[in-house]
């Protein structure tokens, strides 16, 4: 009798649980679920804002997008940007986290200053990069000229050879603080005893780093790398605000190309096909991420 009453109470309780989560679910269905389904649908129809008829076209939009001369370039750039960017962000984040993990005066201020690139709104910081890269009066040109390294100004963002490097530099600068904070938390989880034991055995600082610090960080580092790849894969702002994919489409990533197809060329259908392709590729990374999270939890 008691057990039965308890059971029914719990069942009623679960109902409250669902109710409390309902607002969140409703918002997700409306603002994420519906648009995704709609985009997938649009990618199989001819769908332009200027036309009223929307005939079914099968995989035509996908074929059009894959045949677009900028597509392969944007694919290459996306991978270069995501994996190359992740590599440098982790390198920089690890180095800075190791520095910040020491005990010294002013550590809090140093950490705040090093996190600023993440905090300052992206349009503010990117217009500053834009200004620094300026082809005439940008500070990079002026410094390089004064040092005698170049004799004529370089239009950093306006020429093919340099634009992608500039965009990647700004992207790494924007993204390292998150990685730094994650690795710093990982470092702080390593106990003093582990270091003491290694020192007693006579290990050199290098041995301590490679035998204790790095292995203890492997979980955090893996998560940081895959998250960085996912975030960079979704990158739109840096490229759009610095180059709009130019010069002559050389810095397009998949997201900027999708945006251009939809909102500049007004081809909603092809833009949708492009974003669905991005989603499918992203699903692979999300799968890896989920697997890694489960491994971390198991440990």
């Amino acid at each position, binding site marked *: 009798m008691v057990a039965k009453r308890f059971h029914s109470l*719990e069942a009623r*309780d*679960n109902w*409250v*649980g*669902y109710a*409390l*989560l309902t*607002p*969140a*679910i409703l*918002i*997700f269905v409306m*603002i*994420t679920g*519906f*648009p*995704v389904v*709609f*985009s997938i649908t*649009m990618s199989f129809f001819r769908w332009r804002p200027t036309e009223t008829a929307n005939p079914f076209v099968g995989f035509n939009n996908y074929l059009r997008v894959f045949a677009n001369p900028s597509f392969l370039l944007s694919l290459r750039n996306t991978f270069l940007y995501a994996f190359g960017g992740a590599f440098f962000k982790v390198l920089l984040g690890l*180095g*800075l986290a190791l*520095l910040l993990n*020491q005990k*010294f005066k002013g550590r809090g201020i140093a*950490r*705040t200053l090093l996190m600023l*690139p*993440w*905090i*300052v*709104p*992206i*349009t*503010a*910081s990117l*217009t*500053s990069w834009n*200004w*620094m890269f*300026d082809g*005439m*009066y940008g500070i990079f040109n*002026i410094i390089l*000229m004064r040092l005698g390294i170049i004799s004529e100004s370089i239009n950093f963002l306006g020429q093919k050879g340099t634009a992608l490097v500039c965009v990647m530099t700004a992207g790494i*600068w924007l993204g390292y603080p*998150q990685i730094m904070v*994650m690795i710093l938390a990982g470092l702080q989880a390593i106990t003093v005893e582990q270091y003491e034991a290694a020192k007693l055995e006579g290990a050199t600082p290098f041995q301590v780093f490679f035998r204790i610090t790095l292995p203890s960080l492997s979980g955090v580092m893996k998560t940081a790398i895959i*998250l960085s790849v*996912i*975030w960079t*894969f979704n990158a*739109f702002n840096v490229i759009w605000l610095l180059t709009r994919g130019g010069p002559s489409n050389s810095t397009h990533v998949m997201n900027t190309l999708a*945006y251009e197809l939809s*909102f500049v060329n007004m081809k909603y259908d092809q833009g*949708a096909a492009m*974003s669905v392709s*991005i989603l499918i590729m992203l699903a692979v990374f*999300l799968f890896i991420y989920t697997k890694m999270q489960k491994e971390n939890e198991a440990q």
Partner: protein
Amino acid sequence: MSTKKGRAFRHGIFLYSMLVIAIVVLCFPLYWMVKSSLTPVEKILTKDVSLGIEELDVSSYVNVWNGTDYASKLKMKEYMLNSFIVVGVSTLISICIATLGGYSLARFRYKGRETLAQGILYVYMFPQMILTTPLLMLVIKLGLYNNLWSLIIVYCTFSLPYSIWMMRSYFRELPKELEEAAMVDGCNRLQAIWKVMFPLAMPGVVATVTYSFIIGWSNVIYPLSFITDESKKLVSIGFLSLVSGDQTPWNGVMASAVISSMPVVLVFMFFQRYLVAGLASGGVKS
């Protein structure tokens, strides 16, 4: 003993010099933003510049704030107000929904709970690009184009997934006995959440609000797509209209950039100790 001291001293010198180099290099773009904003307009487009701050000319700030001189198209006052409305209201809505949702995921044992939690995490990693076109069409259909409500509603979603996760982890750490005691004392569950759990989860609430505020303030793609009316623009993109090729008044652009950064930088300075703990637990801001 002296060699040990000497080694510690050298270690300290090395540490500080590495840090100073890192900070100088990595903060340079922000320093340059401030420096340029304080340069008078006639000295901005010239090759005769120095790296130090030589003048403290605040006329660029006055011009962009009041929309005078070269900044006559700019309405910084309105942009700031619009941003505060959109980010403020959406953050408020988002924290309420995230508190309820996070509590639900932390406390109840209903079916599909883990799947739902995992699904919410995926939402947070979704590319905004796939959502933008359908949302724009929806916004137009609802007559919300050039209306701040379109942004308020959309802004709720992109901070919501992570906020729910953050609140869930805070609620998990609070002992169940507290709310049970409150419910024995005659509170219903909503009252128990509001009167007992919510105040106890305050550090989590502060972290979540700070996080929502920062990523909302910086968002680009939605205000870029939903708003064309000059007086409805947000500060994150409003001042970009001042950037126009070779004749860009960079002092004014940089002053606007500094103004638009101030709210988030201040919020971060005040609440960073809450936020950093949340950030470290893995993954924020796409």
